[in-house]
């Protein structure tokens, strides 16, 4: 990926140099007419960022694991823990990793009863490998025999997870489709007539039988005849300016109608997640393991609060009617339902509690996780003389752990002009372990401040306290440690393409 980014540098330079050489008030001679129209019709990027959540977390804090990500010093409830859920939303997928593991993912659930496909079934067939202690003890022909006896299904992990998606829980759009349709279609009906763009279309029709338009619908501006240039040049600039005005007005309408607040409140919806994982293994590979995890995250006020508050003036039936009317182009003056629901939405937005939730979207999450490892006994009769005793036995006792975690996070600095998000996260977890002599109960608490330096770079700094230091390297004998680091997110291929204009 890094090599690829260097490879794109000449393309980026070429693109920017070309952009610099274009005249600011007309089309460039080598510029195709549609490209020129696009240049003048593009509104400047938004400078006012009103959305709070600007980054979909890559980390998943919902899947059960022996070490809960919520206990990690860098875990944050501000991160969305459902990303695992939606990696393969549409269909079941089968993938093979480099180590030979096969993974089957399937998100399922019907639109009517379980909106947003809230179930995820995952099966992983790891490449079977003997327990290292068994492998070390055996040798020669017996080792080869045992390795050859392993089947592809001897190390299988099956997980089932569930995250409800409705108007009260979950952050998918589907349960809120009626409200967003009402808002966006109302914004659309507020658009003005595109008179200048119609004039441009008329000229395209006038010249369509003439060269160069006859053989190319998008010729370079320099290839146009003098009369075509005279007519098209000013028409493109005027139509472009008109499109900018329309786009800016539409964006303002979206803001005034509260679409940005809708997004923020949707991203603040409470989330619940439950999962169960079963790993079944041949005793020569290792012990069977079972784990369960429950996670709940809330930020106090989301879109669900709107539906409760608006029940008297905009219930489900009225909202559906408002959606239908608005999609058909009706406004407050044409439809009682549109008026009632827009009024209810604006009243909810102006509620002091909603304003407070929009201003400071803190989040609280807790999770409970159980992980159990079953007893495992291996016994091999008549091993070679080099392996003693006969029969060779390996005994591993069963063990269990119960982990409870709470995390609270709040942004201290919001994203905005000249500022980048800075957030503070507090977390505490307690792990109760039984039956494992290598592990002990322990309590861990942390406070971490993460400052975004760029879109790709975050600097976390934090203090971690642990009552036992078995799993934590500390420079303090009181269990306190300090962490400082840099987290870099590598750009995706798609973003590189955007940077280079798809060159």
């Amino acid at each position, binding site marked *: 990926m890094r090599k690829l980014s260097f490879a794109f540098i000449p393309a980026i330079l070429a693109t920017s140099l070309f952009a610099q050489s274009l005249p600011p008030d007309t089309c460039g001679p080598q510029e195709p007419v549609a490209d020129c129209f696009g240049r003048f019709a593009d509104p400047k990027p938004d400078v006012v960022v009103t959305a709070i959540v600007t980054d979909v977390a890559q980390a998943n804090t919902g899947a059960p694991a022996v070490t809960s990500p919520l206990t990690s010093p860098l875990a944050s409830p501000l991160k969305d823990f459902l990303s695992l859920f939606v990696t393969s939303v*549409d269909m079941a997928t089968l993938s093979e990793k480099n180590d030979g593991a096969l993974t089957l993912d399937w998100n399922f659930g019907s639109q009517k009863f379980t909106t947003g496909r809230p179930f995820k079934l995952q099966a992983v067939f790891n490449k079977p490998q003997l327990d290292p202690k068994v492998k070390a003890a055996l040798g020669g022909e017996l080792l080869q025999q045992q390795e050859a006896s392993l089947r592809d299904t001897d190390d299988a992990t099956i997980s089932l997870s569930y995250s409800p998606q409705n108007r009260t829980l979950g952050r*998918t759009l589907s349960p*809120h489709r009626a409200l967003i349709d009402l808002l966006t279609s109302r914004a659309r009906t507020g658009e003005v007539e595109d008179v200048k*763009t119609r004039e441009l279309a008329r000229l395209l029709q006038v010249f369509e039988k003439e060269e160069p338009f006859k053989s190319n619908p998008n010729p370079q501006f320099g290839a146009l005849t003098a009369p075509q240039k005279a007519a098209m040049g000013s028409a493109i600039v005027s139509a472009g300016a008109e499109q900018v005005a329309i786009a800016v007005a539409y964006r303002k309408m979206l803001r005034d109608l509260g679409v940005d607040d809708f*997004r923020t409140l949707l991203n603040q919806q409470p989330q619940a997640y439950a999962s169960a994982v079963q790993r079944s293994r041949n005793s020569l590979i290792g012990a069977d393991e079972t784990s369960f995890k429950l996670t709940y995250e809330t930020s106090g006020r989301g879109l669900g609060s709107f539906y409760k508050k608006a029940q008297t003036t905009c219930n489900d039936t009225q909202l559906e009617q408002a959606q239908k009317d608005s999609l058909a182009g009706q406004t407050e003056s044409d439809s009682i339902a549109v008026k009632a629901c827009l009024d209810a939405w604006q009243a909810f937005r102006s509620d002091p509690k909603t304003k407070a939730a929009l201003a400071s979207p803190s989040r609280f999450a807790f999770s409970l996780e159980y992980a159990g490892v079953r007893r495992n006994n291996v016994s091999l009769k008549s091993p070679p003389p080099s392996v003693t005793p006969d029969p060779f036995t390996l005994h591993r006792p069963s063990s269990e752990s119960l982990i409870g975690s709470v995390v609270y996070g709040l942004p201290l600095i919001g994203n905005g002009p000249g500022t980048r998000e800075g957030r503070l996260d507090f977390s505490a977890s307690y792990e109760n372990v039984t039956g494992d002599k290598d592990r002990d109960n322990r309590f861990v608490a942390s406070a971490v401040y993460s400052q975004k330096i760029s879109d790709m770079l975050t600097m976390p700094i934090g203090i971690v306290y642990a009552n036992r230091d078995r799993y934590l390297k500390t420079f303090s004998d009181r269990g306190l440690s300090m962490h400082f680091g840099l987290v870099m997110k590598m750009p995706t291929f798609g973003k590189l393409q955007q940077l280079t204009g798809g060159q």
Partner: protein
Amino acid sequence: MSLIKPPQFWNNVPDGSTLRAKSEGTNENYTIDMTVDSSGDDDSVVSQPRLEHGAGVPLVSPNRYIMTVRINFAGLPAPSVTFSARIIRPDGTQHQNPYTFTVSDPAGTPYRALMIAVTSE
């Protein structure tokens, strides 16, 4: 607000052709619609369900059509949305180049795409 660049121009569109438009998201967390502004007929709106199933807009001569696509992102995670449009002549062949783009924006920037189709007079 961002414009998908460049806009699409089709000319010399034969009478009776059809604009086939389709949108596909990697999940449901977006809204999309397409308005069809016609110089001769009434303006119309192609809804999200129709676009997701693949919509057909008849193009009648002599006419000029301005199609505007609006995409809004809401909900996490933000999907990648692919929009594609092509003009199919009455004989079933494709007229000029198809138009397609893919966008994704977790920050929620609305997107807008423009297409102009003018028919043969």
